[in-house]
Each structure stands twice: as structure tokens, then as C-alpha cells.
């Protein structure tokens, strides 16, 4: 990895505690343009919490976030969006009672010159991007609760991709998907990577990690076990890090 250039994102010495429990304990990780960094660990290891500090859902207790080498102030999701950080949450964060277009543009609605929301324009844009991401998608009029898991996922992904994200956070994007849709997400990740986006990928499936990620950072009990280049280690090495918190010899960056 070209460690000479400035990292796209650097999370430096991040800590956050909830009622005395250190959910994230002095963790430092970084991400370069065109790179996919996997975040691994048991449930409760602190992956999602760490990433929510970057997406603005949580405020860290201490530490600093640098975007392109500059210190970034991220206090809420609006701030994160300003830095072109988009997040696909595990829960998808969709308003079930609204249709796909309303969800895609939620918080960033297209408006007519009079200031009213332009539903027709938004639906047209939604049709365009869905045509690219998931050509089988038809249910543009229904509220998203009428959609299948995979269709809902594609709405969430479309929302993250549509607004020219530079930094993408994906929290288990394939957890609810069948094999075909998982493959589509994998192809999308490759495509976005080629466009120069940096992607944090939270993933439980070791095979997906080995296939999709350039580097993998492993967390355990809120602390960073280590970060490895994926092509320099084996499945077993990573599993050892996750389960035992054991760093493989020689390959830790």
C-alpha cells in the first residue's frame, strides 16, 4: 500500500465510553483512496461504535479525525455528509412509510424553484440510479416496508452512492442478502474502489473479507488488535486475531 500519500481518513486515538464501559479504547486506523479496509471482531468488539464516530451518529470522548490530513469536526450526521462521508447502516436506516425516492433523498430533497419538494424529479433520478444498481427494481411507488430485504438494501446503497461519496462506510452490507445480491454488492464495491473511493467495510464473513478488502483491522473488547495486509495473511491468522486477540508474527503493519 502506498503509505507515502496522505490518508483519506485517519481516526487517531479514538475513545468513547458508555456508562463506564469503554466501547472504543484508544483506537487508531486509517483509510486511503481506492482502498477497502475491513473492520472485524466479535459482536460488541466496538466496530460499529467506532464507525459511528466517523458517521456523526456518536460523538467521541477523545481522539481526532483527519480527512485528507486536515482535522475534521464531526458532531452529527450533517457534518459527516459535508465531508462526503456516506454510511450504509446495518439497520439500513430507512423510513418504512416513505417510498424509495423519498428515502434516497431524505435530508437532501430536490426542490422546485418555489421551494416545494420535486417528487417527480426525485423519482426520475431514483429510477436512473436503481437502473444501474438493481435493474430488477420496480417498486418505486410503494413505501419501502413493502420491499424485500435485498430491495431495501439496494435503496440504502443507492442513497450512499448517489451523492458522490468519497468515503463510504458499509456496516455488514450483505448480512440480509442472498448469494446473487451479495455478488452484486461485491461488484459494486470493486467498481467504487476503482473510482477512488475509500471504503470501511464491517464484515463477519472471513471469505468476503479476504476477497474484498485490501487491509483488515481487527478489534477486540474495544481495543485494536492490529491491522494487516490481507494478501500477506491467511484466514487462520485473522481468525486468531478475532478470537484470541493474537497478532500474527511479522505481518502487522
Amino acid at each position, binding site marked *: 500500500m502506498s503509505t507515502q500519500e496522505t490518508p483519506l481518513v485517519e481516526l487517531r486515538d479514538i475513545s468513547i465510553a458508555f456508562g463506564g464501559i469503554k466501547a472504543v479504547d484508544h483506537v487508531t486506523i486509517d483509510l486511503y483512496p481506492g482502498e477497502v479496509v475491513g473492520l472485524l471482531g466479535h459482536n460488541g468488539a466496538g466496530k460499529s461504535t467506532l464507525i459511528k464516530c466517523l*458517521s456523526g*451518529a456518536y460523538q467521541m470522548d477523545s481522539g481526532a479525525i483527519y480527512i485528507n490530513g486536515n482535522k475534521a469536526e464531526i458532531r*452529527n*450526521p*450533517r457534518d459527516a*455528509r459535508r465531508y462526503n462521508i456516506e*454510511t450504509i*447502516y446495518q*439497520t*439500513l*436506516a*430507512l*423510513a*418504512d*412509510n*416513505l417510498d424509495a425516492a*423519498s*428515502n434516497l433523498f*431524505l*435530508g*437532501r*430533497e430536490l*426542490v422546485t424553484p418555489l*421551494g*416545494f*419538494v420535486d417528487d*417527480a*424529479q426525485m*423519482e*426520475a433520478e431514483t429510477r436512473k440510479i436503481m437502473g444501474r444498481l438493481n435493474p430488477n427494481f*420496480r417498486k418505486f411507488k410503494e*413505501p419501502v*416496508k*413493502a420491499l424485500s430485504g435485498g430491495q431495501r438494501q439496494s435503496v440504502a446503497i443507492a442513497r450512499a452512492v448517489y451523492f458522490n461519496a468519497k468515503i463510504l462506510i458499509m456496516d455488514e452490507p450483505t448480512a440480509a442478502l442472498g448469494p446473487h445480491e451479495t455478488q452484486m454488492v461485491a461488484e459494486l464495491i470493486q467498481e467504487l474502489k476503482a473510482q477512488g473511493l475509500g471504503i470501511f467495510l464491517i464484515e463477519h464473513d472471513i471469505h468476503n473479507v479476504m476477497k474484498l478488502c485490501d487491509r483488515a483491522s481487527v478489534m477486540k473488547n474495544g481495543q485494536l488488535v492490529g491491522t494487516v495486509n490481507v494478501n500477506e495473511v491467511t484466514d487462520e491468522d485473522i481468525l486468531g486475531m478475532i478470537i484470541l486477540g493474537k497478532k500474527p508474527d511479522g505481518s502487522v503493519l
Partner: protein
Amino acid sequence: MNKSAPQEAAPKRSLLQSLEVDTRLLGMIGAFVVICLVFNVFTDGRFLTARNIFNLSIQTVSVAIMATGMVFVIVTRHIDLSVGAVLAMCSAVMGVMQVQLLPQVFGLGHPLIMPITVIGGLLTGGLIGAFNGWLIGYQRIPAFIVTLGGLLIWRNVGWYLTDGQTLGPLDPTFRLVGGVDGTVGAMVSWVLGVIFSIAAVFVLWRARQAKIQHEFPVKPMWAEGVLMGTAVVAIMGFIGILNSYEIPVGRLKRQFQQAGEVMPEGYVDYYGLPISVLLLIVIAVAMTLLAQRTRLGRYIFAAGGNPDAAELSGINTRMLTVKIFTLMGILCAISAMVAQARLANHTNDIGTLDELRVIAAAVIGGTALAGGIGTIYGAVLGAIIMQSLQSGMAMVGVDAPFQNIVVGGVLVLAVWIDIQYRKRTGEKV
């Protein structure tokens, strides 16, 4: 112009599907029609007279105005139990201003009394609403508790302000928003009816054009025509009924006497559209626009459907709560104007139990307490249905306890039907 729009396979569609009308709305209109017909039979035709429809309209306005705001409150999973008390408080402030304070400054009947009073009332309602919203949104006190407290507080603050006295008579200009004293007359009503009809047709036509422009499927032209025709007939029919309600001769004579003239023999005049009903129409249209066509409306429904998703999408849901309750407070103030102007007095018990009527109207109108679902027109229709039931039973001579028993039963029944309907259409309840 009428190029056939692209259609994704056109299986045989039923009449209702072609019209693309909300079946729940149809159900409510159906229920309303049944109520009207039944009461009409039991009152020997007195229920569906121009006079009664006129009275029904002006009695509904106060609750209906607040119900439009209650839709937003309930859609965001809150509740407001204090609307009746806030109405009383606003009414007390406006009563004190126009009966005690302002006449001392300007003299009785001065034209400035009305606007200053209205501003005072709106400020009172808005501030109380904003304070409620702040307690709920920023201090995280449940809306149920905040407004339950408000229910006890505000009516009695109003009581304290007025020393419990009935205030009246109200300023004559002010009384215009109340109903009988303020109607626009037959001619203006017809003109307004034509304007509303054109507006309704225009809105439907524009929606169709927007769809065609983006090459979305549209319903067949005949269906569009039926909808437009129905809208026009409904509007003009309503205006026609109000315009056929004659002003009583005695009242006309008094009016001529006041003007220093003598009433010509055989002179008749009609009430036409009450200003209060006009106010309700304007508010309902504005609130519908707000709900469906603005970002604020979109955020209200998003926050109701999934508060976390709204927050993560960058919506400031706390501020949103403040805005919603401020709006609710302002609508309470407007309702207070209409209510006290109709009664021509401020009384301590004005708006008593209105919170329950308003919530019932919104819920009967299809607003789901689980949040995320509700329409303005539904709430207005709900208020009309409630009022029809109540005054219909009073006309028939049903005993007071039975009236409340029936209204309570109808509320529960309406929600049950709504749940069954949603199950049937596959919506999650």
C-alpha cells in the same frame, strides 16, 4: 397532447384502480353519507337542510383546525392533550385584550382592536406550543406528560387572567371569524366556488402533466375527468347549499335599520360561505401542501416512520418537534378565535374536552398512533363525522349519556376497522 403514456402491462383494472383514489377516503365518505341519511330519516328531513348543514359547518371548524395540527403531532409519535386548555388560554388572552385592555387605549370598536388581539392570541399559542416542543424535544419529557400537565395548567392560567369572568361582548370585527356573524354572502360564495373548482382541476391536471413529462404511467383520461368532475360537483354543491340558506327576515330588518334604511318588501338574502369555514379551507389546503410538498412535511413523516433514520439522515428531529408543537399552538389560537367569536364571549369552559375530540377526529381520519401515517383531509373529515354524530343525536333527542357512549364506541370501532383494512391491504399494523 393526449399521447398514451407508457404502461407496464395493462391487466384489466377495476373501476377503483383506474381512478386511483384512496379507498380509505372512500370508506370515510361512505360512512359520513350513511350517518347523514340515517339522521335525516330520524329527524324527518331536518338534518339535511341548508340551515343544519350551515350550522354543522361552523360548529366543526374549531375542532377541525386543531385536528390538522394533531395529525403532525401524532404522525411523529407524540400526543397533545393540552389543545383544549391552550385554546382556553388563548381565548382568555384575546378576551382580556379586546374587552378590557385595548378599548381603553383605542376606544370601543376601533378597527385596530381585532388585528392586535389576533396577534396577541397567535403569539400566546405559538409560545406555549414552542415551550411544549422544547420540553419534549430537547428535555426528552414524554409528550403525554408535558401536555397532561399543560391540560391542567393553561386553562387555569386563563381562569386566573380573567378572574373566572365571562368576557363579552367581543369586538364586532373580531366576531366575523365566528360563523353566523361573518358570512361572505351568496355572490362572493359563488365566485369563490368557481375559483376553488378551477384550482382543483388545475392541481389534478398539473400532477398529470408532471407524470407525463417524466414518462411515468398515468391513469386513463376518462378517470381523470371523473375525478375532476366529482371535485367540481362537490365544491359547487356545498356552496349551493350554503347559498340557499336564507337570512331570517327579522335579522335582515335589523341590518337595514342599522344602516338607516327600510327593507324593501319581499327582500331575501342568503348567508353563503361563513368566513370561519373559508379559514378552515385555507388552513387545510396550506397544511396539506406543508405535509406533501415541503421538506418540513417530508421530515415529519420520515421522523414518524423511523426516528433513528431521520436523525441519521441529518434531520434535526429535536428542532422538528419544537416546530410541530409551535404549529399546534398557533392552530389552537386560531381555533380559539373561531370558537369565541362563534359564542360571542370568552367563557372559562371554552374548548372543554376539545383535546379528546381533536385526537378522535385525527384518529377516525386514519392517523395511526404508531406514527408515520395520516392525512390532513382525513382529519378534517373525521372532525365532520364526529360533529355530525354529536349534533345529529342531539337533534334526534338522544339522551346526553347515550351521545357520549355512541361517540366513544364509534372511535374504537373506527380504529378497529382501520386495523382490519390495513391487514387486508397487507400493510403492517
